[in-house]
């Protein structure tokens, strides 16, 4: 039942002690929760802490989520707050250390590894990582599966529903320009009329 179950019914099931419902929630949203600290530039170790804290907190809050169908926004907001706190703690404790592990996203997982099937994937990813954090979080949210509603995205990012579409287009345009600027163009294209966002 989990694959097609609504998020609200999974929350209700998990709240009543159904382990399978909980695992279905984890399967559905673990990627989103993981991506948020990563998009804030946190290391894998710090992102793992943020992720675990977020899930532990949800486990205690299951019966109190006011709008279970908006769990996506609840998780993303919690992960974002913990990410920001982690960054601030790191800045407080190591204000002058540029090699701070928490602040420097390791480049090891960058480009020329076996993980990459093609250089253009790496180019696209580099372009994504060069986007402002706001765009990274917005695009990651929109690309999560199942796709969240605009109401969820609105609650998460605190932007009016009507501005999500334009912001999405603006962020994708920036991504597109960066990705294409960074690689040789095999053919001409007509993007010259696109405006800088």
């Amino acid at each position, binding site marked *: 039942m989990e694959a097609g179950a609504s998020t609200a019914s999974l929350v209700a099931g998990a709240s009543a002690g159904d382990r399978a419902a909980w*695992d279905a929630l984890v399967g559905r949203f673990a990627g989103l929760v993981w991506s948020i600290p990563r998009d804030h530039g946190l290391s894998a170790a710090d992102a793992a802490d943020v992720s675990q804290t977020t899930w532990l907190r949800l486990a205690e809050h299951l019966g109190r989520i006011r709008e279970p169908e908006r769990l996506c926004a609840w998780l993303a907001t919690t992960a974002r707050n913990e990410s920001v706190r982690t960054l*601030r703690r790191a800045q407080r404790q190591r204000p002058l250390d540029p090699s701070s592990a928490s602040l420097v996203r390791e480049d090891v997982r960058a480009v020329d590894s076996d993980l990459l099937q093609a250089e253009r994937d790496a180019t*696209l990813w580099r372009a994504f990582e060069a986007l402002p954090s706001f765009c990274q979080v917005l695009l990651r949210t929109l690309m999560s599966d199942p796709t969240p509603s605009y109401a969820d995205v609105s609650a998460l990012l605190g932007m009016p529903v009507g501005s999500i579409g334009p912001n999405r287009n603006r962020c994708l345009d920036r991504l597109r320009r960066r990705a294409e600027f960074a690689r040789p163009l095999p053919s001409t*294209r007509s993007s010259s009329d696109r405006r800088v966002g």
Partner: protein
Amino acid sequence: MTVTDFEDDSRLLARLAEVAGRIDPVPAGVIAAASGSFTWRTVDFELAELVYDSVGEDSVGERELVGVRSESDGRQLSFAAREITVEMEISSGGGMVGQIVPPQPAAIQIRHRSSTTTLAADHLGRFQAAGLPSGPMSMRCRPESGAPSIATDWVLV
């Protein structure tokens, strides 16, 4: 994939999702920890929610601005249940001092990722600990008066 794939927003987003899953997948250990969080539920404790964190999104600057406890570099946290509030300050070295309000003796258990610290609050509700591990943390508090036991929100310290 051809360059024209980039022209269409939906295809670009789908492409990005595919690349993200390959380059920065969720580590198996992170998924296991998320799954395992379910077993940490404490349904028989009343939840004390995090109501103040000096390392909040906006509160740090405000605190410094008004000079409240500005000489301290510790992190102040407040958790509120219906009848009990827990105030604590955690230093960067893993030290903790705190107080239960209203003041009362209680048995305290601090849960960490893979260990537990046991403490007692004195008749004024005061407690302290040292050398707490970093990572997710939650405190359970069982008042000697027999008042309802509480468990705080998990926080990352």
